[in-house]
């Protein structure tokens, strides 16, 4: 598997190839914690303004502007403020955070410290998906090292800034990647999403002001402070700042984690050259560029279309950046089968809180199972779309929308695959 930057100097991946990259020593030898020192000589407003100027958007999938999210926190509130890192990486096709957590844990600690300093927080939680247990030991050691070096704990670097770090684990639930469900889980409850407003910035963990950010979002913060928000922004495009990690999987010759500048040209080159092209003797059929929850793209929406890889470019091309979980499929994949697979995923991961998502994903799974068993009927395509229409925009959280988009995209863009399964002589039984 490849881990490398293309079209830009490695930023997120700057240290990952160094021996013992996870240690404080190597991190500091390569510029680590210089940004924290710089930030501690800046005002909170200046730090937040740099993050705003960077145009950094949440890398977990929703793409919300990070600087704006931070600015919602009432810094004058007498309550404790919390910084929570969302390391519940669970979007199918996404595995970038795993490598950051394993190979560059101090970058996350530094990013969280800068956030904590800017927002007046004294407590940081890193919420790992339960399956990433082996990564927690690495982080706990990194926190211990940082503590011994007076970078975490009381009177950090001789200042009056105090900040403690805690690792916490989930136990197998995709929904806990949704930030309010994550907070419920961190409080020891079922991973049910919460009503918004109040947003976590006002009432999050323990009803205190809380910022929840993805791993890749937080590891970008030291880079932004180091080079300045505008310079970081300029690595990308006008509306999509900086660089982004793409987790590439499926039928390419060189799967891996790739760091690309936002606005990378273009998706065809990325798949066919950078990722080594499709495995021998096969051809591209479809690509899901942003994790399973975004619209799948057909090969003819990619080839010759100069698809720009950033937030706006992918919307124009008919999909989304999402989490950057880039799943490539060749002609051997039956889209009905791949969509059935995702439908089962959303059914399993629906938390059951709201009816459209709980019942909708269950019903969809039943339909897809019947189709897979040879009982597909011509009217099923429309039935699926009608059903999906009753989930999209009607569920309590975005999981319902995610399921809806994954399925909608497949039915609308790959009708020939569905036609093969939806046979007139199957009747109405």
């Amino acid at each position, binding site marked *: 598997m490849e881990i490398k930057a293309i079209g830009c100097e490695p930023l997120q991946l700057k240290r990952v190839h160094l021996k013992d990259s996870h240690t404080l020593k190597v991190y500091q030898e390569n510029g680590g914690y210089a940004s924290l020192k710089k930030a501690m000589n800046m005002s909170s407003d200046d730090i937040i303004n740099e993050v705003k100027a960077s145009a950094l958007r949440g890398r977990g999938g929703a793409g919300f502007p990070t600087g704006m999210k931070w600015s919602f926190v009432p810094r004058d509130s007498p309550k404790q403020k919390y910084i929570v890192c969302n390391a519940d*990486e669970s979007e*199918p096709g996404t595995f970038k955070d795993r490598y950051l957590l394993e190979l560059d844990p101090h970058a996350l600690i530094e990013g969280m410290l800068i956030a904590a300093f800017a927002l007046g927080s004294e407590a940081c939680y890193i919420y790992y998906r339960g399956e990433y247990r082996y990564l927690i030991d690495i982080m706990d050691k990194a926190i211990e090292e940082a503590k011994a070096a007076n970078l975490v704990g009381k009177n950090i670097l001789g200042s009056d800034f105090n900040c403690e770090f805690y690792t916490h684990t989930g136990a*197998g639930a*995709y929904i806990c990647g949704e930030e309010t469900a994550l907070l419920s889980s961190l409080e020891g409850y*079922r991973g049910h999403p919460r009503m918004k407003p109040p947003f976590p910035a006002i009432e999050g963990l323990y009803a205190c002001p809380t910022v929840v950010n993805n791993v890749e979002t937080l590891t970008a913060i030291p880079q932004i402070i180091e080079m300045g928000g505008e310079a970081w922004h300029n690595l990308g495009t006008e509306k999509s700042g900086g660089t982004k990690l793409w987790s590439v999987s499926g039928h390419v010759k060189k799967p891996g984690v790739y760091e690309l500048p936002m606005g990378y040209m273009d998706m065809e080159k990325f798949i066919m050259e950078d990722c080594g092209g499709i495995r021998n003797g096969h051809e591209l059929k479809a690509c899901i560029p942003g994790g*399973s929850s975004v619209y799948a793209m057909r090969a003819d929406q990619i080839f010759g279309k100069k698809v720009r890889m950033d937030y706006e470019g992918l919307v124009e091309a008919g999909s989304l950046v999402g989490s950057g*979980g880039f*799943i490539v499929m060749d002609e051997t994949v039956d889209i009905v089968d*791949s969509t059935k697979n995702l439908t089962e995923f959303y059914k399993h991961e629906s938390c059951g809180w709201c009816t459209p998502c709980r019942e909708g994903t269950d019903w969809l799974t039943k339909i897809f199972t019947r189709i897979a068993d040879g009982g597909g009927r011509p009217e099923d395509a429309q039935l699926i779309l009608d059903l999906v229409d009753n989930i999209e925009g009607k569920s309590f959280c975005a999981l319902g929308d995610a399921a809806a988009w994954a399925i909608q995209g497949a039915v609308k863009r790959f009708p020939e695959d569905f036609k093969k399964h939806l046979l007139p002589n199957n009747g109405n039984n």
Partner: protein
Amino acid sequence: MASAVATDFTNQIVYTDEVAEFSPEIVAEMESHLTKYPAERKRSALIPLLFVIQRERGWVDNAGVNYLARFLDLEVTDVWETATFYSMFNLRKIGKYHIQVCKTLSCRIMGEPDITEHICNKLGIHVGETTEDEKFTVSRVECLGSCGTAPMMQINFDYHEDLTTEKVDKILDSLK
């Protein structure tokens, strides 16, 4: 090898008032988890503590849950409410090695069905079953975040990636 002793993941809990007992070392470990959270927010430690129960008892059982309820000043139903939500908590006895094959899209298109079939044939059980010697349980689970090295499986907490049937044989044969 062995034939099956259980057929699915049905909750096997028998609800009684029995409370588990733990050694002072384990109690100290449990108490260390409490230090991560504000004193009045002990419930936050529930998921990490359920993992301790599962490790010590082999599964999340009635007596272990009763212990946690006392330990955290919760109702027994509060503990069950959380324990039954998360897929990593086993509500029945499972084998010493829990083989969890990732079944989601990237793994599926990279050969997961063959891997699962191979494991089941080798062990002589179906998905969801445990071998008669209680050594192996096989599950298919949702995306484990290892898509670039698909197909993959997790055995207990260890990741095994870029699987082939030969590699699976080696791994399973090495487990005692």
